[in-house]
């Protein structure tokens, strides 16, 4: 595997951070050095309380590698937040078969943390026991919102998980087991959260889709005579004669908005709706003076008569196709509308 330059890949503004550290140090120059670094870290929003951070730094203080200082550990703690951000971005997009948690752990460890382990081991002494590393990983990569990091509790959890193995005087490499020990629970929790968010997102989408579908269905279950309404409105204002053909088109559009080719309808299913919608559309097209003269109830009564007449000639009891109803009704309604328009000013 190619060596990754973590300083470059997960770049943090070290100069700016160090200038800030200098300010804190000058401000609290008489404080204990560990406390100064703790204050600096807490102000960098790493998500732990001052006490937790201070205890952690105190514990690792004598375990730092040759030439390393507490400030180096602090900088890596800050960098870890950046790495966590990138890893979370990756996890959000990942699609593991059967939502396998075990695969999520292995994939993230391989892609994000295997090389990181090599990098971070330079920070601590070579001969320290391995559970220190898995504890450090838990501290570095725990989610910001649930950080309650008591170093002693964490160490107790890790100390029995991964014993340190030696062959002669040399420590046996068990880095993958250490990574699993430190990060498995974190990765699983993060992936569970990702799955939960996906579920909620899916539910939201489904609800939105169902609502849109209902609205569409409601629209489809009405007769919409927009053209007819407009023609009557224009006629009320301009008194310009409307041709029979134009009225036929408007009636046809009114019927087409409800009747669908290939769908069967019974007369009783649409009779009331047709009378109500046609009366509404005609009424809506009238000006205020005509509205006073023709109430909706009046118009409905007139349409009811036409429909009754239609029913006398069309006695089909079985459901008919939408196209057939449209063809049969057009002439009756057209005649009615022509008569209504021509007499409405009388």
């Amino acid at each position, binding site marked *: *595997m190619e060596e990754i330059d973590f300083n470059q890949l997960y770049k943090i503004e070290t100069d700016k951070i160090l200038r800030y550290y200098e300010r804190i140090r000058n401000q609290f120059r008489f404080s204990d050095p560990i406390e100064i670094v703790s204050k600096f870290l807490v102000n960098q929003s790493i998500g732990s309380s001052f006490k937790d951070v201070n205890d952690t730094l105190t514990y690792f203080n004598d375990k730092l590698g040759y030439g390393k200082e507490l400030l180096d550990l602090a900088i890596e703690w800050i960098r870890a937040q950046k790495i966590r951000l990138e890893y979370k971005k990756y996890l959000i997009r990942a699609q*593991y*078969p059967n939502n*396998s948690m*075990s*695969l999520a752990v*292995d*994939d993230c*460890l*391989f892609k994000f943390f*295997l090389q990181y382990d090599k990098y971070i081991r330079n920070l601590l002494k070579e001969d320290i026991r391995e559970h220190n590393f898995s504890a450090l990983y838990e501290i570095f990569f725990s989610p910001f919102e649930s950080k309650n990091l008591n170093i002693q509790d964490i160490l107790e959890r890790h100390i029995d998980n*991964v*014993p340190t*193995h030696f*062959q002669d005087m040399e420590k*046996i*490499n*068990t*880095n*993958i*087991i250490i990574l699993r020990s430190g990060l498995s629970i974190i990765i699983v929790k993060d992936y569970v959260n990702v799955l939960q968010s996906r579920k909620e997102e899916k539910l939201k989408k489904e609800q939105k889709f169902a609502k849109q579908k209902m609205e569409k269905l409601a629209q489809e279950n009405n007769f919409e005579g927009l053209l007819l309404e407009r023609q009557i409105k224009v006629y009320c204002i301009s008194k310009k004669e409307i041709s029979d053909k134009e009225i036929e088109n408007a009636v046809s559009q009114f019927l087409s908005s409800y009747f669908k080719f290939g769908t069967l309808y019974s007369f009783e299913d649409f009779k009331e709706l047709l009378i109500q919608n046609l009366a509404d559309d005609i009424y809506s097209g009238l000006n205020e003076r005509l509205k006073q003269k023709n109430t909706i109830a009046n118009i409905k009564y007139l349409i009811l008569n036409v429909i009754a007449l239609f029913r006398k000639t069309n006695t089909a009891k079985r459901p008919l196709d939408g196209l057939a109803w449209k063809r049969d009704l057009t002439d009756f309604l057209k005649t009615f509308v022509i008569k209504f328009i021509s007499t409405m000013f009388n």
Partner: protein
Amino acid sequence: MKKENIILGLFFADENNLVFESIKYSEALSNERRDSLKMLSFRFLGPVFLTAASGIGNNWKIDFIDSALSLYQKQVDETAVIQSFFTLNSSIETDSGVTNLFALISTPFTEDVKLITEEMTEYIHPSVIQGRIVSESLLGSRFNFDRFIIRELNRGINLIEYSLGSARKMYWEEKRRYYCVGLIERKNGEGIRISNLYTFDKDDPLRKAYLNFIPSYYVMSILPDYYEHLISETLTIYNKKGVYPNIREIKLSYEDKKVIYLEEYLFENEIFKTYGVILVQQNEVTEENNNLSFFKKTMRLILDKKRSLTYVLDLLNPQFKNEKWGAISNEDLEKIGKILDNQN
């Protein structure tokens, strides 16, 4: 990726050459074929053990086998959708001995071999070794290795499967040069199976000198034919009709020594005619080194331009003798072992 579309197996051989496997297959595969699959691990790993078991030379590893897949024109309708077929091997040596983790992969994509190699060598295989140490120390006599290794292999095979489907990437690689120590001529078709080795004269000191840089002339002679037929059988078991494998590359290594077997083929008159070169990576002993494209081009000279074998042998290595060493029958192979692999 649908299980029907891939061939994926992960085999682990422990220090005592006990083999454990995890193989993915479609539910539709018959019981008879499933039984045949169980033998795949032994057969693929066979030559990996061979160099050690034969007692000849050193414990060479077969790191990578890549095969091209050709389409049978007359069976286009039945063609199974696979594009790549390769195997990878990771070997780790501990105080208890050598363990091998071997992957057999065939998919409809060209695949990022480097990524899968890293998964095996950097994560899956070390995880087995480290997991065993830790589990043994934690569980003591309650540690069940069989259960442990199957769990690890399943974990590994899932990780490999998850990374399948990405196109093969071009990585920056230092250009290496090689020295040719042998040419293998093969012909395969209905009722025809020929394999011949051309190399240095048996009395040429170079023949003996280069024995230290290859597993043996015997092993190198059998590898292409052995694996090509094994891959063909594997394709049949998985019901992948209409495709025929042609070995493209075999990589072997031992400590810092590396050998590449590179092959080119031509399908003509219902016969697969192939020429492959055995190449030793440039070192302090080798002379007249060339890059891989030179060797590919040279083999195409015989196959496409119909240049004579003598001409090409001279191009590959002027020290070669136009003497044919049969590499199919046991008798011929024994002769290679006895004469060409003789250290004296």
